[in-house]
């Protein structure tokens, strides 16, 4: 039990740099912001008083307590657009890391309300959005690369530790593994995955087609290879990714795998979300080094620019200051 406790402590409570979580926050919220912008034209059809599914039906089907602000106010376009404006502002605040945790809480509440307004429209992409954003709230994702951390130089109220226990990152990592392992488990129950024809049928669903590579997608040999390859890659992403030596090649393979699916198939956002999630398997030290390198090259770019010396110094001081705020 003592050994288990030690492992548990090391695995979940070891303190590591927070730049990785901050980087993930920027990527994740950036993608949700893209989703949000794409969704702006859908207010009338999906969320407003004249939407496809009425609020009355939603209420009848979900009589239990759940996070849906639509149940607390009279449904009107004013309310719907108001909610969307608040959602947009909270996403931008989360992206830049200003009042990060409260902004993420508001964003999650608005997101869940919009999702639960018409839940029959949704797929795994939206489930991922809710699950991961909820975990971001409890993470130290605003502790660095954020306006909060910059303000921390002037106000103790914004000051946060740059090193933080790993537990929230670990939950996200376990969540990613669980997604891959469950999907492989379910696929192994299907005939087409075993006999190798699943990718043939999936790529022939007209609503899901995107671009083609004729030789690959019209050859039964390659279709079978892709079917079994999918199972192998997904299993590796759920299991072998935890082994140190295999981690990096598997992350890269996973990212290429999701990019290929995005190319062949029109599954908006899901593949992009999965690629973003895989970033969490790089170690916090690796991600910190990446963030440092990016900021340093940005500083070099400013130094070489034609801006006035005083402005250059101010920008560089701000970047360095925000970057180097001590624990």
């Amino acid at each position, binding site marked *: 039990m003592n050994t288990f406790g030690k492992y548990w402590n090391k695995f979940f*409570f070891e303190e590591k740099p927070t730049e990785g979580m901050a980087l993930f926050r920027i990527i994740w919220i950036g993608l949700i912001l893209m989703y949000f912008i794409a969704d702006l034209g859908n207010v009338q059809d999906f969320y407003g008083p004249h939407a496809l599914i009425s609020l009355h039906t939603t209420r009848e089907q979900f009589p239990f307590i759940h996070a849906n602000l639509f149940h607390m106010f009279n449904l009107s376009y004013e309310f719907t657009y108001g909610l969307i404006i608040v959602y947009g502002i909270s996403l931008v605040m989360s992206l830049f890391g200003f009042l990060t945790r409260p902004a993420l809480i508001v964003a999650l509440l608005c997101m869940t309300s919009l999702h639960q307004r018409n839940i029959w429209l949704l797929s795994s992409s939206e*489930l991922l959005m809710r699950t991961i954003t909820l975990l971001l709230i409890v993470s130290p994702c605003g502790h660095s690369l954020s306006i909060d951390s910059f303000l921390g130089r002037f106000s103790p109220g914004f000051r946060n530790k740059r090193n933080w226990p790993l537990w929230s990152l670990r939950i996200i990592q376990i969540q990613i593994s669980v997604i891959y392992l*469950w999907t492989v488990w*379910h*696929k192994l129950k299907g005939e087409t995955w075993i006999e190798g024809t*699943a990718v043939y049928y999936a790529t022939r669903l007209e*609503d899901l*087609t995107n671009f*083609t590579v004729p030789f690959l997608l019209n050859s039964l040999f390659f279709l079978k290879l892709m079917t079994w390859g999918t199972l192998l890659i997904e299993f590796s992403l759920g299991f072998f990714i935890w082994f140190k030596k295999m981690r990096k090649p598997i992350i890269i393979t996973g990212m290429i795998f999701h990019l290929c699916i995005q190319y062949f198939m*029109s599954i908006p956002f899901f593949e992009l979300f999965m690629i973003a999630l895989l970033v969490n398997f790089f170690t916090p030290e690796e991600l910190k080094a990446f963030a440092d390198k990016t900021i340093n090259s940005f500083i070099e770019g400013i130094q070489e620019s034609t801006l006035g010396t005083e402005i250059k110094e101010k920008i560089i001081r701000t970047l360095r200051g925000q970057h180097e705020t001590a624990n």
Partner: protein
Amino acid sequence: MSRVRKIFISGFIILNFLSMIRVHLPMGNKIVSQIYQPVDSYLSFFSLFQSWTMFAPDPSRANVHLSAEVEFMDGTKDTYFFPRASTMNLEDKFAFGERYRVISDVIRKDQNDFLWIDTAKFALRKLRANNYHKIPLKVNLVRHWNEISDVESNFVPHLSKNTNFNSYEFFTYEVL
């Protein structure tokens, strides 16, 4: 970090782990339900029940879309076709194509008949602009589908489209 804080966080870690496997445990089982009561409340509140059955156990083999035919008092008819991702550009697919694909697949199923009246009314609203002077009598919801041919008997080339659809009128909404 204090011991109490660690215990509290460990509880949260366990809650999350339990929530990841919830859907895969028997939902109707009384003992499991009792144990899972707090987890279920957490999951229902944010709608976080996770199944992750993407293309599993087998990918669907049906191309499906919906239409609604409105009959007016003067004997004329008009039809609203629900948007289909297969006819959209990439931008529209991202914006709403996938959502219409998902909901069309939900609406067509008999167990979701509680959505049919709303769907009929929605189609009626969509057709109102072109028929504002007419009085609608009824709305017929129609599902259209075709099945992807078997890989062995008739290999379908990628991106080829089958324009032959079976149709079935599955619901009539009497407006008047």
